[in-house]
């Protein structure tokens, strides 16, 4: 599957750098992401994946470099600013309120009202419930009861709600931080189905993952990070897991193949 090279990139970062104290976490990162591209970000621990993701999601600011998203220069001071331009992040801990039900979580921070008066705005629960069902259907998440609290749900269902919340607001890019790291086999399959659904709806995805099987099944491209630099970009269609492992570890291709 090849990306349409003639369209404008959705996200381009140039010379992005970040250091923590004396540790250079990310050095001169250049990266272009096409609209509707599903890109995996892989690399060892400390390779700079998370640093990169935190900067495009607005959680951290780069020391140097530029972020260009949807034809605009971006200087995010918070995740809310990133979200305002259409970048949604599904954090590993999901940011769901366990004591609230599905509807209340899907609309957390974006409630619908009967009438607005600051904190005393009256919630339009019926409208939110109706819209929630549509939202979950669009994303392909199956939840038995919209009134069920998040606390009582399985890991896969939680992840589904979190992704539906990220996908449901006309967002252009969704960042998934190891979406199946804590899930069992069946639940992982469910979440992967949801991610495939995002491809059909044309939403770009950046997924941090340690699971190469998943990367090869779901993604279009893979960006390999090592020691704070991007050491390679590959099209999934024209690469092999062996090549990616070699890039991740920095060890010669033939040696890695022997090790596998």
């Amino acid at each position: 599957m090849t990306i349409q090279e003639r369209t404008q990139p959705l996200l381009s970062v140039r010379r992005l750098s970040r250091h923590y104290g004396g540790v250079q976490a990310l050095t001169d990162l250049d990266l272009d992401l096409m609209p509707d591209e599903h890109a995996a970000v892989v690399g060892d621990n400390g390779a700079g994946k998370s640093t990169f993701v935190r900067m495009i999601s607005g959680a951290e600011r780069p020391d140097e470099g530029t972020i260009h998203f949807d034809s605009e220069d971006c200087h995010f001071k918070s995740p809310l600013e990133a979200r305002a331009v259409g970048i949604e992040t599904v954090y590993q801990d999901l940011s769901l309120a366990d004591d609230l039900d599905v509807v209340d979580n899907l609309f957390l921070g974006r409630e619908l009202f009967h009438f607005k008066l600051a904190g005393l705005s009256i919630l339009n629960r019926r409208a939110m419930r109706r819209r929630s069902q549509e939202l979950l259907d669009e994303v392909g998440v199956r939840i038995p009861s919209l009134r069920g609290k998040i606390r009582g749900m399985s890991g896969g269902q939680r992840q589904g709600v979190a992704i539906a919340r990220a996908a449901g607001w006309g967002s252009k890019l969704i960042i998934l931080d190891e979406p199946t790291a804590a899930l069992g086999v069946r639940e992982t399959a469910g979440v992967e189905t949801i991610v495939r659904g995002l491809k059909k709806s044309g939403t770009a995805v950046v997924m941090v993952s340690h699971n190469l099987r998943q990367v090869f099944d779901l993604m279009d491209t893979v960006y390999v990070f090592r020691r704070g630099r991007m050491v390679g970009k590959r099209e999934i269609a024209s690469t092999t897991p062996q090549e990616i492992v070699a890039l991740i570890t920095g060890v010669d291709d033939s040696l890695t193949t022997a090790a596998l």
Partner: protein
Amino acid sequence: MSKTELEKPPLEHDEKSEPAKSFAMGRSLWQSENLFKYTMAALLVVAVAGMSIASPDFRSQGNLINILQQNAIIGVIACGMTLMIISGGFDLSVGSVAAASGVLAGALSIHNGMVVALAAGLAVGLGTGIFNGLLIAKAKINPFVATLGVQAVVQGILYVKTEAKPVFGLPQAWSDFGFYTIGFVPSTVVVFAFVALACWALLRFTLVGKHMYAVGSNREGTRRSGVPVDRVVITAFALGGLFAAVGGIMLVTQSNTGQPSAGATWALLAIAAVVVGGTPLTGGSGGIGSTIIGALLLGVMSNALNIMSVSPYWQPAATGFLILLAVGLERFRATGAR
């Protein structure tokens, strides 16, 4: 491996097996959650019914009204406490804030009229509440430490200003209100009902109410979702302070004096009422209905012990027993639900 091959099987998995399993899970949770709520309500019904059968004194209309009236003040303060606990905090300063509000309102009413007196009394509560909220939300001080400090400061100022003496000679208007009844319902009970209704509606229907649950449930996640978390916390403490002031002013209508030493035990009693009702101290769940049940349960127990001529020294022990029972049940529910 090609992509199309993998696409089908997971879909079927998802459709068939997942919902059935989790539906059962959702139902048992629903049951256990309500079970707790109804346990305390049932306990209240059993206590009232049992005492009514056993004691003619208890079941007299006068005594039942008396229970409501005696617990109206703690009830009002507990309503505010519920908002703060749901948001993930609590307030130890409500007692001294109530006393300060009552004394100030009482003192001002002598020369400045009732309107100024009431406004000033309520302003003390609202102001201290906002200050508590700022300490907790903005300065990130733990609610226990912040409100303990504020409690001591308010009490200190109050004792200095009054020389720890009650304020006497208040206008008759105070008791006129305090002993007014609508039908057979005392005015203080009406105030309690009104405050409870307002807090219930706030939690049930409004944006800030929903956000109180969200903040108490997952503060950082709620912040990331774009909710102005600090403002929600400050609102909860502001209302908690305001209702503490209402409680303090209600006390003035009962005694017609401004009593600086009043309210020493109120913070813990209010927290007890909330916890006994079943709202967990960890925040995120619970409600006003539970708090009313908790407050009435404590009130009925105290009244029953009086009627049975049990030494008043047993009161705190009995309250403690109820708290432990409630917390034990809550633990059982929380672990059982997982």
